[in-house]
């Protein structure tokens, strides 16, 4: 894992007002704060925090999955969230990962480590949180 690269990617989002942090509980994750959702039309929150694990071997390995706080009203409504991919306690919060794989048949392009990163993964998170059922 290249922490320097990830921090550089997250600084690109910070320039546009998006807070995202690299955190660890022995395994590294990125937590995106206040990600916009399509929840207002369903009387759900307009923002939520989202966690994404840093894959082993990043950036050669693609970023994958997305998680929400356990008990989030978006679990069961975002694509793949019915399929629990594990719960992780990070920063005092229990996060449930969903089966969302934007770079492998989830709707996004194939992974290209020269282009993609945690800054572009934000694109996939807002699409994920917009397409609620």
């Amino acid at each position, binding site marked *: 894992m290249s922490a320097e690269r990830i921090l550089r990617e997250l600084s*690109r989002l910070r*320039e546009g007002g998006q807070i995202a942090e690299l955190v660890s509980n022995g395994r590294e994750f990125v937590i995106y704060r206040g990600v916009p959702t399509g929840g207002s039309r369903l009387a759900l929150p307009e923002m939520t925090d989202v966690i994404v694990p840093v894959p082993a071997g990043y950036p050669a390995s693609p970023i994958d999955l997305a998680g929400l706080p356990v008990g989030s009203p978006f679990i069961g409504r975002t694509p793949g969230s019915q399929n629990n991919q594990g719960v992780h306690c990070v920063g005092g919060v229990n996060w449930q990962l969903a089966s969302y794989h934007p770079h492998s048949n989830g*709707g996004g392009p194939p992974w290209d480590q020269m282009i993609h990163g945690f800054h572009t993964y934000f694109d996939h998170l807002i699409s994920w949180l*917009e397409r609620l059922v």
Partner: protein
Amino acid sequence: MANENENPGLHIFVNRRKFERGDGVREEMTGAQIAALVNVPAEIAVVRREPGNVPIEVNQTVHIKNAEHFLVTRRVVEGGYVR
């Protein structure tokens, strides 16, 4: 020759990332051009102007204000099942 009314520092934020003239930002842009900045094909793009989530059609041309924000999402989002 550059138009003297052009702002050389014109930039916008799409999905929280900054894009400038060198990336293709212009005073007038279509929704498709805004979506292209974050590599979302026009046929699956949903473009909104913040604040207020004002929708912009992909074939609609809008006047760009410096430093304004847009969100681009895609219509195709698939969840996985058993891996």
